[in-house]
C-alpha cells in the first residue's frame, strides 16, 4: 500500500548538534567565547569604573607611606614612592585596554587596505610583499624598541610602534585571502556581468576577508597588550608617571626579592586580560572557520 519506504535513520555522526538560538544560546554553544567575553567585560568595568572602586589618585606620592605591605587600608600595598598599588593596578587596566584595542583596530584597517591593494593589483603585489617580507624579518618587539628609542615616550607613540610591527602579518593574511577569492567562480561571474573593480572589492571580496581578519585582530589585541607591558617593563614604553601594568612591574623589579607582590598583582591582571582576549580569539576561530571546529 505505502510505496514509500521509510528513510533510514541518520547515523549518529550526521545528527545535527543541538544549536541554541539567540545571544544566550550562542554563548552556551561557545563556552570559550562566553568565558573570555565575561572576563573581558569585568576588566572593562574595572577600567571604566576605576575612580569609583575605592581608589585614590594613582600618581600621588606619599613618601611617609613607602613600601607598605598589603593591608585593609592598602589592599595591594604601596610602592617605593608611597603610591597605592591597588589604585595603580585598576587604572592600569585603562592603559592596557586602550593600547590593545587601538593597535588591533589600526593594524586591521591599515593591514586590510595594504592587503586588498596587494592582492588585487598584480603590479604592486611584488613590491609591497617584498617590503612586507623585510618588515616581517625584524622581530616585532625589537622593531617597537627601535621606534620607541627615537620618539618621546607616550601612549600614542607606543600604539604607533606596535601597530607598525603588526601591519605586515595582517596584510599578508588579507592578501592570501584575496588571492584565493579571485579564483572563485562567483568572482569570475561578477566580472563577466560587468562588475567594476571598486564594486567587486567592496561587495564581493571585502566581506569575505572580515572573518579571518576578526580572528587575527583579536590575537593582535592580545599580543599588543603583552608587547606594551614588555616595552614599559624595560623602560621603552609609556612614560613612568602613567600607571600601566608594565610600569608597575618595572617599579617592583628592584624590590622583587623582598616584596614580590608588587610584581604579582599587575601580573595577574595582565595575564587574565590577555587570556580573556585569547580565549575569545580561539572561540571566534572555531565559529568562523568550520573546518577547524571543535572536533578537528
Amino acid at each position, binding site marked *: 500500500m505505502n510505496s514509500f519506504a521509510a528513510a533510514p535513520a541518520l547515523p549518529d555522526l550526521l545528527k545535527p548538534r543541538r544549536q541554541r538560538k539567540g545571544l544566550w544560546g550562542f554563548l552556551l554553544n561557545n563556552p570559550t567565547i562566553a568565558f573570555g567575553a565575561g572576563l573581558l567585560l569585568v576588566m572593562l568595568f574595572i577600567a571604566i569604573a576605576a575612580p569609583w572602586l575605592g581608589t585614590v589618585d594613582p600618581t600621588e606620592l606619599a613618601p611617609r607611606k613607602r613600601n607598605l605591605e598589603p593591608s585593609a587600608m592598602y589592599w595591594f600595598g604601596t610602592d617605593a614612592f608611597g603610591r597605592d598599588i591597588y589604585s595603580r593596578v585598576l587604572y592600569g587596566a585603562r592603559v592596557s585596554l586602550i593600547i590593545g584595542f587601538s593597535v588591533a583596530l589600526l593594524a586591521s584597517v591599515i593591514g586590510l587596505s595594504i592587503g586588498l591593494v596587494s592582492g588585487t593589483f598584480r603590479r604592486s603585489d611584488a613590491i609591497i610583499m617584498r617590503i612586507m617580507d623585510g618588515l616581517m624579518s625584524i622581530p616585532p618587539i625589537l622593531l617597537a624598541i627601535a621606534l620607541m628609542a627615537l620618539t618621546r615616550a607616550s601612549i600614542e607613540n607606543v600604539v604607533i610602534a606596535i601597530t607598525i610591527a603588526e601591519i605586515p602579518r595582517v596584510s599578508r593574511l588579507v592578501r592570501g585571502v584575496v588571492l584565493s577569492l579571485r579564483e572563485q567562480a562567483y568572482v569570475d561571474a561578477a566580472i563577466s556581468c560587468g562588475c567594476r573593480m571598486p564594486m567587486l572589492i567592496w561587495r564581493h571580496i571585502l566581506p569575505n576577508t572580515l572573518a579571518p581578519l576578526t580572528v587575527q585582530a583579536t590575537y593582535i589585541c592580545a599580543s599588543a597588550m603583552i608587547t606594551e607591558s614588555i616595552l614599559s*617593563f624595560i623602560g621603552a614604553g609609556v612614560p613612568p608617571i602613567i600607571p600601566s601594568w608594565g610600569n608597575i612591574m618595572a617599579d617592583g623589579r628592584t624590590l622583587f626579592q623582598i616584596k614580590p607582590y608588587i610584581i604579582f598583582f599587575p601580573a595577574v591582571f595582565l595575564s587574565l586580560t590577555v587570556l580573556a582576549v585569547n580565549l575569545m580569539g580561539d572561540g571566534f576561530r572555531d565559529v568562523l572557520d568550520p573546518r577547524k571546529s571543535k572536533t578537528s
Partner: protein
Amino acid sequence: MFSYIFRRVLATIPVMVIVALFVFSLLYIAPGDPAAVIAGDQASPEDVAKIRANLGLDRPFLVRFSEWFFNLLQGDLGTSMFTGIPVSELIGQRIEPTLSLMVLTLIFAVTVAVPIGVLAAWKAGTWIDRCIMAISVIGFSVPVFVVGYLMSFFLSLELDWFPVQGYVSFKKGFGPWFEHLVLPSIALGFVYIALIARITRATMLEVLSQDYIRTAKAKGMGQLGILFLHALKNAAVPVVTVIGIGIALLIGGAVVTESVFAIPGLGRLTIDSIVRRDYPMIQGLVVVFSFVYVLVNLCVDVIYTIVDPRIRY
C-alpha cells in the same frame, strides 16, 4: 635541488637589503626630531646639533644610507654613542650568553612541545587534549617576565633549587653554566612551547585522518610507530616552519628574560642602550638580530628540500 637552494639563498639578499634600509630609515620616519629626543630634555642646542651631526641627520639621506650600508657590508655597524666602542665589538663581547640561552631554550622547547602536541592530537577531544590546549592558551597569555619572576620566586628564593640570577660562562664548566640557564630557558620557552604544541596538534590531526594511517593501523602497526614514524614525518614541514618563525618570539623574549635573570647578553645590552639612548647601538642590535632571524629561516627552508623529497621547486 641545488638550483632551488641557490635561488633561495639569492632571494634572502633583497630581504636583508630591505631590512637594512628600513632600520636605517627609522631615523627619518620617526615623528619629531630624533636628535632632540636622544639628547634629552636638559640638552643645549649645541648638544642637539652635535648629536644630529653624529647621526648624520645633517646630510642627505641617500648619501648617509649608502655610506652606512657599505660599512655594514664590511661588518662595520657604526660606533656606540655612549662608549665610543665599535658596535660590532660590543655585540661580540655579549653574544655568548644570549646564544647559550636561545640554543638551550630551542632544544628544551622542541623536545617538550612536539611530544605533547602529538599526544594532544592522538587523544583529540579527551580531557588530556583539553588540558594541553588550555595550558597552551595560558602559555600565550602570560608574559615571559611573569613566568620568569614566578619561577625565580618559588624555585630559587623559596626552595633554593636554582641560583636566583646571573650567568656563568660555558668556559667555566658545563655544570654551573647549565644550572644558571635552567630557569631562564623554561621561562623563555613557555610561549614557544605553546606555539609549537598547537601547530603540531593541528597538523597531526590532518595527517592522522589520511588513508595511509588507516592502512598502517590495519596491517597491525603499533600506535607509537604510527604516530612517530608515519604521521609525524609527514607533519614535519609546518612544524619545522613554525619553529623557524618562532625564533622571532625567542629573540623578543630573550631581551626581557635577560633582564629578569640578570644575564649579561645582547638583551641586557639592548635595555642598557635604551636607557642611555644609544641609538647606533640599538640600530646595530636590530640589524644583527634580524639577519640572524632571516638566516635561521633560510636554513629551515634548505633543510626541507634535503629532508622532504616531495618539495621540488
